[in-house]
């Protein structure tokens, strides 16, 4: 067993770390507070080829693997959680194309996503289909060479700025998962509009919008993976998506730990830095240990995926564990900073609010536990 990154991976990670430290991190507070999509960061990331890490070179990618993608994602998320979230959601549009796209679809849609020329989004959730993802009601009918969709999606990350959407519709809304079908939509398609942005507990700069389909038309060739295979597309996409959420959560947790560490070394009470108190040390040690476990689980899931082994269980574990670690770590970080931690002067309260997202999105913790239980009870 080998826990070493290859030299290529290390070279990429070193460069990414430097980029994150110098470009993303110093502006992280500003990026969060602005309420604006982090275009500038994304443009720079595109120049560095960071959007298509596991995509093959013929489609404009870097031709590396998901392990590298995961490790890079952690760096990005740690430096700027908002940018990390965009990075993670982008993969949700890319991955189904990698997996199921025809040659033509890959050239037309995967390539601009891999080069970062365009941002992608993935629309599954509906008002009535959250955890119950098989209950998609957005209807789809084939008419005159076009699929015509009616319905809406909610909470969709990157919606608005994104130009390429993978949308799960249903050819037989009455038959649930069995009629579900995946389609590719582009911004500006007839009948396809973007609805209101959610006001959230955190991540004000991350768009989460409605997708509205009113006789919305996408060309027949934009069906992805064939008719009635949409549930499978969604589930397989979420398998990788879970690793993505896991790495986002690890990033948030690591950022919180860093703040807690530096604060604990500086803050003096009772004549000594609070890091000298065992009660604080215990917290810091637990945080570090849990983060390390979460990190390794995420990397392991990615590695299993890269080596063609079943990775679904590990992906669910990684997402579950990492998101709960993020929640615990950020809560403890606020505790370590005491009253200052509760103020907006320090970013830990923000990280705490951000962490909560990861326990909900792309399958709640409850659902992850169901998935894991299904695997181990098989």
């Amino acid at each position, binding site marked *: 067993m080998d826990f070493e990154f290859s030299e*290529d991976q290390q*070279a990429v990670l070193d*460069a*990414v770390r430097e980029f994150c430290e110098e470009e993303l991190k110093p502006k992280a507070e500003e990026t969060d507070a602005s309420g604006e999509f982090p275009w500038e960061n994304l443009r*720079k990331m595109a*120049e*560095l*080829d960071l959007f298509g890490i596991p995509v093959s070179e013929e489609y404009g990618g*870097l031709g590396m693997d998901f392990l590298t993608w995961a490790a890079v994602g952690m760096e990005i998320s740690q430096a700027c959680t908002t940018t990390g979230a965009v990075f993670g959601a982008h993969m949700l549009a890319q991955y189904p194309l990698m997996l199921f796209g025809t040659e033509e679809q890959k050239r037309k849609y995967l390539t601009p996503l891999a080069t970062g020329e365009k941002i992608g989004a993935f629309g599954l959730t509906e008002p009535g289909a959250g955890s119950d993802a098989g209950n998609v009601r957005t209807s789809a009918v084939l008419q005159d060479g076009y699929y015509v969709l009616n319905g809406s999606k909610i909470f969709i990350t990157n919606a608005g700025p994104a130009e390429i959407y993978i949308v799960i519709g249903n050819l037989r809304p009455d038959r649930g998962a069995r009629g579900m079908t995946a389609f590719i939509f582009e911004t500006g398609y007839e009948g396809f509009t973007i609805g209101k942005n959610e006001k959230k507990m955190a991540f004000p700069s991350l768009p989460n919008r409605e997708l509205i389909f009113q006789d919305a038309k996408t060309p027949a060739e934009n069906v992805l993976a064939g008719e009635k295979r949409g549930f499978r597309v969604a589930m397989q996409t979420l398998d990788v998506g879970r690793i993505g959420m896991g790495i986002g959560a690890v990033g948030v947790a690591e950022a919180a730990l860093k703040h807690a560490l530096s604060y604990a070394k500086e803050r003096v009470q009772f004549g000594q830095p609070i890091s000298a108190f065992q009660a604080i040390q215990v917290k810091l040690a637990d945080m570090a240990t849990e983060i390390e476990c979460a990190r390794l689980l995420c990397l392991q899931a990615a590695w299993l995926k890269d080596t063609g082994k079943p990775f679904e269980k590990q992906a669910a574990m990684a997402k579950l564990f990492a998101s709960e670690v993020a929640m615990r770590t950020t809560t403890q970080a606020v505790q370590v900073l005491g009253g200052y931690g509760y103020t907006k002067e320090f970013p830990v309260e923000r990280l705490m609010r951000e962490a909560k997202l990861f326990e909900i999105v792309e399958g709640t913790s409850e659902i992850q536990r169901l998935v894991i239980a299904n695997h181990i009870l098989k």
Partner: protein
Amino acid sequence: MKIVVCIKQVPATTNVRIDPETNALIREGVESQVNPFDENALEAALQVKDGYDGECQVIALTMGPPQAEAALRDAVAMGCDDAILLTDGAFRGADTLATSYTLAQAIRRIGDVDLVLCGKQAIDGDTAQVGPGVAEHLGVPQITFAIELSLEGRKITAKRMLEDSFEVVECRMPAVVTVVKQINDPRRASMKNVLKARKREITRWTAEDIDADPDRIGFQGSPTVVWKVFAPEGRKGGRKLEGEVGDVVHALADEILEIRKGLSTA
């Protein structure tokens, strides 16, 4: 057009310390990087290349241990066409005189070089002496501390950043120019180029390859010796004033005027 950029691999100096017991330099665990000013020199060279019609070759050159190859790979990833590592046990212990002689010999060997770019200074040795030294050994003009640089035919025009003013100067190529941080924002290498650079062959030259006089390189060719290194006397935070602005300002003014009184030309 042929441009040589001299780059030095340096430790991230903020982490270099002195062991208080042995007074030895602790460099372990400290990451190496390309000297920041040299990244500006690289960028300046690459900008010349980008804007040049006609063939323009940019070569990164470093003298250092075999590990310094990593710095050259960074330079290639940024866009340099070629990279040369001067590495030889005999180069060890070089002060700025020996370093600049060695670099100059390599530049002669490269041949037909029009422009040599250096950083203003290296953040470890901090001397700012190597650039002018190279210019002298090559017998060409030097323009130090450039904050702007433009080429026109064989003419170089540069704006130099001095203490309280700028000076616009002109000279003919070949020449050596050293650049300050403010001249540009160095580009970052894309990951594709990082990966490509990893596979690149890096030329290695020894003292013999550059026909170096053994008496002028390394320790042997260095008139200065670092006799000892020690930790600087650490400053300690002093008094803190807190409280009513009026009181604080009063106390501050006392302090400032007291110091001001002691100045020779207040």
